[in-house]
């Protein structure tokens, strides 16, 4: 009983913090992109526009909810939830601090991949249920894109798994304790740099963010899979994208940057700082790079990232055999 209460309490805190972070990530993105494009970004609602996410939330709540003609009611209703729930559930195994992890599963990394691979259903079903050609094309594109880049993503972390010999995220963080040659932190990013780069690119593609935002390419597909969505249902897709962004950053931090490990500052602060760094990088990429063409996207995933990730696995295996 005590275990159940403690777990529920942890889940409550984690979900609350993540929803708050999602809200303020939208503010951060608008501010940062505004700055890069020499604009102000949101500045009217509260100091520095800090109340903008709350104003947006209230606005979206009270917007009219439109159901397109001949849409599949049940699936149209379920798709936003199917998109948002996996984005939140991923956080169940991520260690925020030495003792702050909701549950340490011995196949934690596989759990993350299993849950993350379900997010695509929300998008595909939304595209299909809307009964609109733009939405359907956006949904199909994203299905093809996400299935393709999942391979590179899965193979890119194999190097880390081989080096640490475990799938538990807590153990992976603990294996990165200490230093190399007395100065360099023992983070996986140094021996696994290629894997790290492949992971970042693939997760950017999995997030459907620029330069891989083809499922919602405005110039050709209106808004892609969420064209027909309005009100809070649209907001759920939006929140799912930002929650996924935080999840991807948290996983990158855990696998490659030593998770909550770091000197002086408390662990949770280190974890948040590293996650913030990745979030900033994702926003920066969006503000900098133009969108890929569809054939370039597929070619890059299958002909560049996948062979590189395989080579990384082979190379890591050989190195472990020789050094051991």
């Amino acid at each position, binding site marked *: 009983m005590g275990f159940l209460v403690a777990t529920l309490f942890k889940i409550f805190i984690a979900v609350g913090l993540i929803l708050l972070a999602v809200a303020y990530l939208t503010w951060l993105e608008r501010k940062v992109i505004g700055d890069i494009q020499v604009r102000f970004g949101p500045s009217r609602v509260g100091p520095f526009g800090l109340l903008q996410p709350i104003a947006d939330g209230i606005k979206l709540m009270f917007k009219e909810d439109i159901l397109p003609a001949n849409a*599949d009611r049940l*699936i149209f209703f379920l798709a936003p939830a199917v998109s948002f729930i996996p984005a939140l559930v991923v956080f169940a195994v991520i260690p925020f601090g030495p003792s702050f992890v909701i549950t340490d*599963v*011995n*196949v934690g990394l*596989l*759990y993350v*991949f*299993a849950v993350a*691979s*379900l997010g*695509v*259903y929300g998008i*595909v*079903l939304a*595209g*299909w249920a809307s009964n609109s050609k733009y939405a*359907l094309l956006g*949904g*199909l594109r994203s*299905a*093809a894109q*996400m*299935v393709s880049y*999942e391979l590179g993503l899965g193979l890119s972390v194999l190097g880390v798994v081989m080096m640490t*010999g*475990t*799938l538990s995220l807590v153990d992976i963080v603990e294996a990165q304790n200490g230093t190399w040659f007395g100065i360099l932190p023992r983070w996986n990013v140094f021996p696994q740099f290629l894997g790290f780069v492949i992971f970042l690119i693939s997760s950017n593609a999995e997030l459907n963010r620029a330069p891989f935002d083809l499922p919602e390419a405005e110039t050709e597909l209106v808004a892609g899979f969420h064209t027909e969505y309005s009100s809070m249902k649209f907001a759920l897709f939006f929140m799912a994208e930002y929650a996924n962004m935080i999840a991807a950053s948290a996983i990158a931090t855990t696998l490659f940057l030593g998770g909550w490990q770091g000197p002086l500052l408390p662990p949770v602060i280190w974890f948040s700082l590293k996650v913030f760094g990745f979030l900033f990088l994702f926003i920066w990429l969006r503000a900098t790079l133009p969108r890929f063409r569809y054939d370039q996207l597929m070619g890059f995933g299958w002909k560049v990232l996948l062979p590189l990730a395989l080579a990384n696995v082979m190379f890591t295996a050989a190195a472990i055999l020789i050094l051991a």
Partner: protein
Amino acid sequence: MEWVLFLTFALLAGAAAVAMVLQRNPVYSALCLIITFFAQAGLYILLHAQLIAFVHIIVYAGAIMVLFLFVIMLLDLRPEELPPMQFRRAPVLLGLVLAGALLAELALGIGPRIILGPRGPHDVETLRILGNTQEVGRILFREYLIPFELTSVILLSAMVGALVLAKRRSE
């Protein structure tokens, strides 16, 4: 607690499987199949087979069913255009007989051997020490190495075959 979870997952798997067959809309059928996979994964976890459970979700729910949905959506089958569902007596009877035979086989042939037969070396405690994934890997690459490699050769040839067929059509 374990029994409640087992019954929930088992009934869900069964109900979703039946619903999959009875659905007229192919997208709904696919979704019912995905629910079945999830319920099965829940059953694997109850058996302390976490690795199998999550690999099951990644491979079947996360990859194969996405491609299924992809194809179904491209075909764009309208339920109203499909012929109405018919229940002919002979196929239903044959199906029931086959299902009964399978059930009898499970109950008489395999059931007693698993429940009453000798225990294998892996129980919950040893798995906790050895690690689920580690132990599966050890068995796979020591005792079943040749079947494992043969499977990968078969998969490779299937892949080459699919590519050859796809390329020929586009010419």
